[in-house]
């Protein structure tokens, strides 16, 4: 074994049932990481695992026509040690051989507690009846944007209603740029958003011209690289988002390598073919809150006063920052928790920077209420939402809506192999390689995402109904709907909830 292989061991491998395998070789084609090789054995070929590159994406397993493959663990065993786990040894080896920043994709994988899992919902018993969502209306309609503090201030109700973004279900598709994901996936999300009355975000990669018909269901992003921001772009969106930070990598920018800047991406981002697309860490015209205000109003002026959302990563002083953002004129604050997903981020940043969305959301909602400016901006919570219970817990803590990225990818086949940045996503999601990205069929993806949202919507209605609440507005910020377990006093007080039994 050469020393250059130190630290490259895969901890999974495909296991082949050779009694079922007919040697068709489909698995070798499906694996974009060349983990599987077909080798002759007797009169047929059989698959063999290289045991170097398997990331447990499960593509070969799912696609094998004979059901002959299982992904199994192939542990990288080191002498048990409380601190130097295989993961740390592996990474040190890897960096010792490359000298580079270790990159990864997906959301943080630290074993810090997930506070969602320590929150429990209330339910009706005797004194108030639960409501059956199958029989009674159970409404999740939500309006995002700046609202008057009292009806008396409203000169023209129609104007106010027009200025808001309606959602039939308070779920949005988180910003994932064209470039980080491919056009097929954006198309599928756009179609679902239009069909179900939701909103999708473009991310920073601009809006491909094929998606212009879906711009009315899209919040278009203006990020530090200003990709795709044209006069027309600033007119056609339902709203705009200024991206300051991302939960998975607060405080750092992005880099789409030149080899991924293919024709459609180059055109949409308005940059030369094969040139690196660099998003600087800060926006170089925003070094202060005053600068942010200028950009917010510049976008409002050019777009005809459409809602402007400011996306920030959840960091230590998030409540004060959010309050400043609202005072600066933002109509929505998008909070991205440290568990949020990414296409590519330094491992060390993804797992060690930022704070959990549960706490960030709780303090921001409370701060805006204390300052009497909660009506001026909606709060979108994102970064680590895994299921409909997380959605409803976020709503109860005070979110107007949530945004989901990873669940959309998972619905379309992702198994969390965390190699989004490789450009080889075997499910055809986070790749623009023409051959691989055609694996993602738009209609299929649209159906999968639709099913996921419909399933979650039913579950959200169940949670509302079993609490006897027919309108999600009465759930929003209603922290009495939640009780905590296994939380300390500080956590309870920050979350603004009581302990179970209280």
């Amino acid at each position, binding site marked *: 074994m050469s020393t250059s292989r130190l630290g490259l061991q895969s901890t999974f491998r495909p296991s082949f049932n050779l009694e079922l395998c007919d040697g068709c070789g489909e698995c070798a084609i499906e694996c974009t990481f060349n983990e599987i090789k077909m080798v002759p054995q007797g009169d047929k070929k059989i698959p063999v695992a290289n045991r170097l590159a398997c990331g447990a994406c499960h593509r070969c397993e799912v696609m094998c026509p004979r059901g002959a493959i299982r992904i199994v663990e192939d542990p990288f065993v080191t002498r048990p040690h409380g601190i130097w786990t295989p993961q740390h040894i592996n990474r040190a080896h890897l960096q010792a051989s490359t000298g580079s920043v270790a990159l990864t994709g997906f959301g943080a994988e630290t074993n810090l507690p997930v506070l969602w899992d320590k929150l429990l919902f209330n339910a*009706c018993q*005797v*004194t*108030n*009846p639960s*409501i059956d969502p199958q029989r*009674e*209306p159970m*409404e999740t*309609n939500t*309006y995002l944007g700046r*609202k*008057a*503090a*009292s*009806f*008396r201030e*409203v000169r023209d*109700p*129609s104007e*106010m*209603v027009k200025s*808001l973004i309606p959602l039939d279900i308070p779920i949005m598709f988180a910003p994932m740029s064209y470039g980080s994901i491919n056009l097929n996936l954006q198309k599928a999300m756009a179609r679902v958003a239009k069909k179900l009355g939701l909103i999708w975000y473009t991310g920073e990669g601009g809006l491909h011209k094929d998606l212009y018909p879906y711009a009315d269901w899209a919040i278009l992003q203006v990020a530090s690289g200003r990709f795709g921001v044209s006069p027309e772009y600033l007119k056609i969106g339902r709203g705009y988002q200024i991206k300051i930070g991302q939960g998975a990598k607060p405080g750092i920018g992005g880099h789409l390598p030149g080899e991924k800047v293919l024709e459609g991406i180059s055109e949409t981002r308005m940059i030369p073919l094969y040139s690196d697309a660099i998003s600087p860490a800060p926006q170089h015209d925003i070094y202060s809150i005053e600068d942010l205000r200028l950009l917010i109003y510049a976008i409002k002026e050019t777009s005809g006063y459409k809602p402007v959302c400011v996306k920030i990563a959840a960091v230590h002083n998030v409540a004060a920052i959010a309050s400043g953002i609202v005072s600066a004129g933002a109509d929505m604050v998008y909070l991205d928790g440290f568990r949020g997903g990414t296409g590519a981020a330094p491992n060390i940043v993804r797992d060690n920077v930022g704070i959990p969305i549960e706490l960030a959301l709780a303090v921001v909602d409370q701060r805006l*209420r*204390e300052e*009497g400016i*909660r*009506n001026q901006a909606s709060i979108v919570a994102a970064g680590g939402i895994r299921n409909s219970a997380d959605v409803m817990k976020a709503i109860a803590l005070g979110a107007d809506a949530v945004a989901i990225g990873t669940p959309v990818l998972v619905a379309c086949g992702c198994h969390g192999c965390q190699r989004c940045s490789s450009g080889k996503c075997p499910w055809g999601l986070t790749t623009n390689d023409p051959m691989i990205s055609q694996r993602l069929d738009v209609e299929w993806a649209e159906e999968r995402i639709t099913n996921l949202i419909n399933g979650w919507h039913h579950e959200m209605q169940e949670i509302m109904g079993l*609490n*006897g*609440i*027919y*309108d999600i*507005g*009465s*759930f*929003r*910020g*209603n*922290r*009495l*709907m939640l009780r905590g377990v296994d939380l300390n006093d500080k956590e309870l007080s920050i979350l603004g909830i009581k302990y179970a039994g209280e």
Partner: protein
Amino acid sequence: MCGIAGLISHQREKENGSRIKKAMVLQNDRGNGLGAGYAAYGIFPVYKDHHAFHVMADSSFALKEVSQFLNEHFWVAHTEEMTIWDKVITDHPLFMRYFLQPKLREDDVNPDDFVIDKVMHINTSINGAFVCSSGKNMGVFKGVGTPKDIYEFFRLDEYQGYCWVGHNRFPTNTPGWWGGAHPFNLLGCSIVHNGEISSYGINQRYLESNGYICTLQTDTEVVAYLLDILIRRHGLSIMDAITVLAPPYWASTKRYSDRKEQDRITAMKVIYEAAMLNGPFAILAGFDNGLFSITDNTKLRPMTVGTTTDYSYFASEVSALYEMEQDFTQVVTPRAGQPVIIQYQNEA
């Protein structure tokens, strides 16, 4: 489960509380003896322009502190111990009545805000003291006991009012205590409520961010404060305030043919989302110009209304209506979410 009754004379003809008592006693089993109360309007004609404060206190020390505070901030026209019959309930707080005019300073723009601020101060800062009612020409009488006990304790036979509201409590969420009985009052608005406000958590946060402090450990209190903020501070009509508290479903809103009305309702629903009431409720609210009832959109709590030419009657049970009047021109059960608003036909 709770019991509600109300009666109002359209022409402000006065009578004592005996008819409301009959309606409440009939509904005795809707409560468990842990709370009952009455509100009566038009009972203080001599001091009708003064705020009548009904203060309950668990010690003479607390009462003294209240008196000092009130003397500091109000012109006190008259003070009296409330007449009670303590044979019927022996373990009770002290009750004092004050007729007050606010001592406004230059920076106190709004006298109502001034009064509310002082009520909140007493309720939160003076230990053991609590303001039951603070309106003009009206009063709230409430405590721990059955409707009959509380009626007799406060000797309501001796008051003459043109609008009476009664309540009988079966507490399930919060302890039964004297301050927690209904009606809940703020200025002229008195609320009685049957049900449970599931939206309490957000209603309370909405009110707190607007300067109200919920002290009574019970959900009904928020309804009184919400009506105050909507009607008095934001200037909504009673009908609009009711739309805010029990709005039409989104599905119904979307079916409106009148686009302008649709946008108006949508705007109200959006602005006052946190003020919307959810959960089972039937509410009867007395105010300076009349009496109105609302129920939740699923109608999980009962409310019936009977009318004659000169009177309107409200009760949880139809049988209770007939305890107050035999000869109705109309008896209706309002549909889910449908309000009934009765306003006086003459000036006070």
